[in-house]
C-alpha cells in the first residue's frame, strides 16, 4: 500500500503565483518520507492537499491523490484514512485520557471489553500507568500529552500517518527520545508516513532502513 500524489499543481488565485507544477511523489508503506523546506515553500499546502483541506476559493488545485491504487482526492477528510499529528498534542480538554483514546479508537471494535484492552495495552505501549486514564489533559506533563496524542492517532488504525512538525515544540532531551518512540510506533504498523519539517535532525533520526525520499521544497515553483 502506498500513497501517491500525481501531477499536483497549485497556484494562488489572487496573485497567480504557482507553488507546485506537475509535482509527483510516492510515499511507500513501511517508510517515512520527509518533506523539508523554508517557510512559504508550500510544505503545508502539500499536506493540506493530502488531507483535503485546501481552500478552493483561494487556490487553483490540480492533480490526483491515490491510496493503494484507489483515488481518494474526492473523499472528505474523515473518509481518507489519514492520521495527523501536529506540533501541539491537541488533546480534547473536556475529555479525560480514557475518553480521548476511546474517541480515537476505531469504531469497528465494538466489543466493550476489547476496547478496554486496546486502551490498556496502548497505555502500556507508551509507558504510561493505568491510573492516568481518568486524568484531564491539563494535568499531564508535555511529554505525557504528546504520547497520548500519538496513541490516540494510532488507535484509529490510520492507513497513512502525516506528521506536521511534531517535534518542534519539544525540549532537546525529550525530543530525541520522543522521535524514536514516534518512528518506532509508526514503523511497527507498516504504513506509509510523511513528515513535514524544517529540522534536519528530524530526518536524520529516521532509521536508515525506513528512510524514504527526502524532498526539499524551495520557495520557487516545485516540480518533479
Amino acid at each position, binding site marked *: 500500500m502506498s500513497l501517491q500524489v500525481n501531477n499536483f499543481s497549485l497556484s494562488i488565485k489572487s496573485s497567480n503565483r504557482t507553488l507546485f507544477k506537475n509535482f509527483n511523489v510516492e510515499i511507500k508503506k513501511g517508510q517515512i518520507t520527509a518533506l523539508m523546506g523554508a517557510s512559504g515553500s508550500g510544505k503545508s499546502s502539500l499536506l493540506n492537499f493530502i488531507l483535503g483541506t485546501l481552500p478552493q476559493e483561494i487556490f487553483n488545485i490540480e492533480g490526483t491523490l491515490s491510496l493503494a491504487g484507489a483515488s481518494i482526492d474526492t473523499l472528505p477528510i474523515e473518509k481518507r484514512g489519514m492520521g*495527523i499529528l501536529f506540533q501541539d498534542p491537541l488533546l480534547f480538554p473536556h475529555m479525560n485520557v480514557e475518553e480521548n483514546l*476511546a474517541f480515537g479508537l476505531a*469504531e469497528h471494535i465494538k466489543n466493550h471489553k476489547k476496547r478496554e484492552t486496546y486502551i490498556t495495552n496502548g497505555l502500556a505501549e507508551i509507558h504510561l500507568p493505568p491510573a492516568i486514564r481518568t486524568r484531564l489533559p491539563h494535568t499531564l506533563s508535555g511529554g505525557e500529552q504528546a504520547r497520548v496524542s500519538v496513541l490516540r*492517532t494510532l488507535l484509529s488504525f490510520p492507513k497513512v500517518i502525516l506528521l506536521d512538525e511534531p517535534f518542534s515544540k519539544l525540549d532537546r532531551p525529550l525530543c530525541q527520545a520522543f522521535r524514536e518512540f514516534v518512528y518506532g510506533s509508526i514503523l511497527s504498523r507498516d504504513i506509509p508516513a510523511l513528515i513535514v519539517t524544517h529540522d534536519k535532525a528530524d530526518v536524520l533520526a529516521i532509521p536508515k532502513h525506513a528512510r524514504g525520499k527526502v524532498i526539499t521544497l524551495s520557495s520557487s515553483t516545485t516540480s518533479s
Partner: protein
Amino acid sequence: MPPQKKISSKRILTLLGFFLWVVLFFLPLAASIIVTILPSIGYEPALAQYDVSFRYWQQFLLDPLFHKSILKTIIIGYTSAITALIGAFGIAALFYKYTRHLIKWLAGMLAIPHAAFALGVSFLLAPAGYFVRILESLGLSNISGNHNPFLLFDHLGLSLFTVLVLKEIPFLTYIILGSMKNHEIENWLITTRSLGYTNFAAWRKVIIPVVYKRIRLAFFIVLAYSLSVVDMSIILGPQQPPTLSVLLVQFYSSDITEMRFIAYAGALFLGFLIGVSILSFWVIEKLLSLRYVLSLRYAKVFSFITSAGIMQGRRTHWLDSLFKWNSWLIVFLLAFITTLAIFVNAVWSFAERWRYPALLPSSYTTKYWNRALLPDFEPSNLLSFTQYLNKDTLELIFNAPLFQTLCIGCLSTLAAFIVSIVFLEAVRLFKNNNLFIKGLYSSFFIPLIIPETILLFGITFLAIYMSFNANILTLSWTHFLYTFPYMMLTLYGPYKSYDERYSIIGRTLAKQKLKTFLKIKLPLLIRTIAIALAIAFSVSVTQYLSTELIGGGRIITITTEAVNLSVSLNRRIMGVYAIIQMAIPMTAFLIVFYAFKPLEHSQKP
C-alpha cells in the same frame, strides 16, 4: 530633599477608568436598583407612602395572571435562547471556512434593529399578512385564515419565539466566529475529522464544548434578553397575558399607585429569574467540568448531547444528522423570512391601495414617507422643503424622530468608544491579569443581564426626582449603558490579541506614545473598531423602553414611533418606520466599512 515621584500613565489611566466607572456605572446602577427595591416594599416618600410591607410582593406572587405570564416568559425565553445557540453553532459549522464573507453578511443582519425585524415579520404573520396572501394565491385558502395557529399574537408565543431565534442567531454566530480565530481550533477540527468523524460530529463533540466556554457571556446576554424583551413582545408576542416584562410595563404605566408598586416587585422578580437561569446554566457547566474530580456519574445526563457515543467511538450518530439538517433549515428560514420581511416592509411603506389577497399593491404613494420624516411639516411634498428653511422649520427638524435618533445614537456611541478605549488601554498596562480589571470588565455587562424593567424604572425615578428626565443628555447616557457593553464585547478580543510589539517598534521610531497609538495601533484595529462603532450605533437606534421612559414622550425616536404605531395597525406608516429603522444602522455599517477601508489598506504593515 527626596526626588519628586512622577505620576505614571498607568496610575492616571487607572484613576480615570475607576472614576468613569463609578460615575457612569456604579452609582446610577446601584441607585436605580435601590429605588426599585423601595417602592416594591411600599416605601416611596415622593408619594407619601411609608408603610413598609410585602403586600405588593404577595399580590404579585399570588396573582394567577402573573403565574401564566411567568410560565410563558420562561418557556419562550429558554427555548428561544437555546435554539438560537444551537442554530448559531450550526451556521458556524456549515460556513466557518468562509468566515470573511460570513462576517459581512452577519454585520448586515446585526444592523437590522429588533423592532424593525419584528414589524417585518408581523406583516408576514398577520391574519391578512403576506403568508396568508401567498397561500390564497396558491389556492390553499382553507389552510390560511384564523385556523392557522402560527399567527400574530398567538397565545403559545410561537411568533415571538421565531423572531427571537432568528434575530439572536447572527449575534451569537458573530461571537462564535470571533472566538475561533485561534489556529488551535482549526487543528482540532482537522484532527477530529482525520480520526473519522464528520464535520458535524467534530463540532458536536469537540468544538462546541470548547468554544461554549469562550462565548458563555454572550449566551447569558441572549438568555437575559429573551426573558426580558419588551419591544418585540409588544409587536408580535402573546397576549392575555403577555410576557412578564410587557405586563410589568403595562402595570408601570398605570395611574394607580398600587399597580406601579406591583410592577416594581415584578421587575425585581424578573431580575431574580434571570439570575437563577444564568446561575443554573453555569452550575451545569461546572458540574460537567468537575465530573472527573467529583465522580459525578449523573452529570453525564447533562453531557449526553455533546458526549453521546464517545466511549464507543461512534463516528456517526443520529444527533449529528439532526444537527446538520436543523442547521440548513435555520439558514433557509433566516434568509427567507428576513428577505421577505424587508421586502414586505418596503412595499407597505409605498402602498396606497393594497387589497386583500393581492400580492402587490395596485397603486403607490410617498405621502407616508413625508409624514413620517417630518410629522408636523406642511406641505406634504418634501421637494419644496428647502424653500421653507427658517427658524420654525429648523425646530421641526430638530424635534423630528429621525434627527433625535441620529443625535442620541452619535452621542452614546462616541461616549462608549472613548470609555472603551480608556479601559482597554488600562487592561494592556495591567497585562490583562489584574483581578480588579477582570471584575470591572464583568461589571460592564450588568445592564445587559439585569432586566430593562429594573434598571429603567429606577433610572426614570431618579431622572424625574432630579429633573433630568426628557433630556437628550440623560437619554444618551441611558443608551450608553447599552451601547458600551456591546462595544466592549466586540472590541475586547481583537484588542487583546493585538501584537504589542508593533507599538514598541512604533515608539522606538516615532518617540511619541500618542503618535504611535494613532498611526500604528488604531489603523491596525480599524476594521474591528468600525464594526464596533456600527454595532453600538445600531444598539442605540434599537432602544425602545429606555427612550419611552426617560424621554417621557417628549423625545421621540424612530423606534419608539415604530413600536407605538404597531398598536395602531397602520401598516403603511409602520412600514416606513421599520425601513428607516433598518436603513439608519445599515447606513452606519456601510459608512464605517467604506470610510475606513482606504485607511486599513494603506496602513497594513
